[in-house]
């Protein structure tokens, strides 16, 4: 399932996938895969993404 909230949060911070990837220490393709719903990140990566985007885990990754 696509993670549109992650994409919106990233866009709100005016960050490209590449910028977010570098900030989290992963590849751009990993961020792309998470946004597309092709990959479920580990909790550590989820936390790292939340920290960079100033969001909580619920806001970005909890299923509605």
């Amino acid at each position: 399932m696509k993670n549109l909230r992650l994409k919106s949060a990233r866009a709100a911070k005016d960050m490209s996938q590449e910028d977010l990837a570098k900030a989290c220490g992963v590849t751009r393709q990993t961020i792309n895969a998470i946004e597309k719903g092709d990959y479920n990140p580990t909790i550590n990566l989820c936390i790292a993404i939340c920290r960079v985007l100033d969001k909580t885990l619920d806001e970005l990754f909890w299923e509605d």
Partner: protein
Amino acid sequence: MGAGMEDTGMKQNNTGRIIAMIVLTIAFIALVFGFACSPKNTRKTEVNANVIVENGEATYPGFRGEFNIARAGKYDIHVNWWPEDDPGFISGFVLYDLDGSILSFCTGQKVQAGFLPIQLEKAEYSFEIKIFDSEDKLNEFLNDCGEDYASDGDVFTGYRDGQWHVTYTITASLATKWMLFILAIGCVMYAVLMALIIFRMCHEGKPEYDERQKLVNGKAYEYGFYTMLVLSVIYVLAWFMGIADEFLSPGVAVMLITLIVAAVVGIYNVLNDGYIAVNAYEERVIATLSAILAVNILATIGGIRTGSLIKDGKLGISSVNAFCGLLMLALIVAIVIRKARTKKEDDDEELEA
């Protein structure tokens, strides 16, 4: 270390890798030159003859011997007989092929000669030392060898009675000039490549893959493992049926299976973005692959030149270089395809934005 890269608690020591690579490089170069300088590459035979010519007839019946060629290849044959006193007869040297036909020969009162490189197999080759105490006997021999000596006009006139001690030396050495040249280039390129890789490891650190890439790597190795199983079973079945031996030796088969498995692992990794580490530079990876491709192209050309690419309808050891080059090419093509796909994704993302 980014959060996307998990600390498994099993940090790899880069120093150990570097030492291992240096040791491997030294061992490779030593092996290559050990092969080039191996005593197996040269065979030398000496025949000491006491030749007495009495009333125009030589008492020495000649000599027939063998030398064992331990390694197939092109050999330089050198023959030498140079007695102090000019003998009153002509000596002849004949090298026979495995079917008994004459491979090469030479005659002379005193001789220091080398033949053009001759392809010899791993076998015992016989040679003969002949003594000619008259022009008729020499002519007969030369006619048998297919030479029209009578029309040459260069007739030996020194036939006489006497006693002479002659040492005949026959040396067969693997024609290593081109081989050494190619091996030297190969060693230099290998050493340079290793130096570049070690330099990169020292300055960039060990390659680090994020969590998704590690999963992709694992999947790639899984596919590689199954590929190896299938290919091994196919080869063993073909070997039992006697088909495999017609096309390739076991050594070449093992290398080919390894390269195909490496291709499966590599291409899967590339296409799923698991090949290039987070801290790696893609351009350098492509440059390294291109350099290895170039080395293997040169080695393949060398193999074609020396006839070791395909020998008697079988894939020779140089075919491994050809397949290794194909592997590098396949990886480079896969990287290009992935780059094109990534660019398309970037364009789509811009459009959506």
